[in-house]
């Protein structure tokens, strides 16, 4: 009887911890303003669902592919942002210019390498859109680097400015 009471108190304490955490977690989440950055919690539901259907890659693994030259990086932000700074060697295919830019870069994409798309980081769907467009063209080894450009620069990895290649 006493034993049961002890265990009941253990379960109640654990349940209490989860309840308080739920309240705190939701309160902090709702109080966090949408900064529109990688650290924003306001990730749209549609993005969450889309990213679950995609193959994703971390900055660290993407960098391994970068050093071994086994991937083509596709910057899906607009031309001006790309020119301001991008992953060294990345090509620029803005999501809204895929149809017109694809023929230009087709030969680079067809090099039997992994294709890694990126944009503004968590919550940014441009890289997902381009990855889907590439999938429709028959590319299967396409990955979305979800941490995006902010993740790459935060890790102090090689970048370039201006136009290339």
């Amino acid at each position, binding site marked *: 009887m006493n034993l049961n009471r002890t265990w009941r108190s253990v379960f109640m304490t654990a349940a209490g911890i989860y309840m308080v*955490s739920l309240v*705190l*977690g939701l309160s902090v989440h709702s109080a966090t303003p949408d900064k529109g950055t990688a650290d924003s919690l306001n990730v749209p539901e549609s993005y969450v669902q889309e990213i679950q259907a995609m193959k994703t890659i971390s900055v*660290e693994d993407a960098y391994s592919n970068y050093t071994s030259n086994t991937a083509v990086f596709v910057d899906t932000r607009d031309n001006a942002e790309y020119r301001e700074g991008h992953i060294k060697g990345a090509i620029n295919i803005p999501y809204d210019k895929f149809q017109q830019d694809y023929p230009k870069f087709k030969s680079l994409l067809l090099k039997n390498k992994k294709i890694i798309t990126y944009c503004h980081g968590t919550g940014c769907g441009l890289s997902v859109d381009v990855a889907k467009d590439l999938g429709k063209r028959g590319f299967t080894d396409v990955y979305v680097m979800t941490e995006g450009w902010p993740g790459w620069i935060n890790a102090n990895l090689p970048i370039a400015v201006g136009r290339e290649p």
Partner: protein
Amino acid sequence: MERKCILNFAMLKPAVILVLRMALGAVFIIAAYGKLLHPGALVSTVINFNILPAGLAKLFAYVLPWVEIIAGSMLIVGIGIRGASLSLGLLLVSFIVAIAINMHRGVSMECGCFDIFGMNEKIGSAILVRDSLFLVVVIVFLFTRDFVLSIDSYLEKRVR
């Protein structure tokens, strides 16, 4: 001789439990701090594990660091230790299952365990072993009756 060894272990056990309690509490508080610093990265990591449906994945990411910080603090302060151990045990089981599933899928990804001090650990056997050891420790706590230097034992003695 044998009797002496048993006596020594019995004397040592409360001290070992105390050290483990403090260490594990500190580990979870540090882990929670890193997660609270980078909430967006945590949401992204939980989504990348690709186990929970979207809404639940986000909810898990919001709640996780708070469970770690509250339960970790309770271990250190010594209040509701067994309840805190149960809540951490459930978390550890979820980590172990999630990591094992993704290792089975052949996915290479960041674990997001300690998003602090520039640590970018990737899921793998080492993390599975570490989490399993933590799980063993919390299970030991769950079946321990008396904790030295704890509010729990102080209150229990007062009730007796």
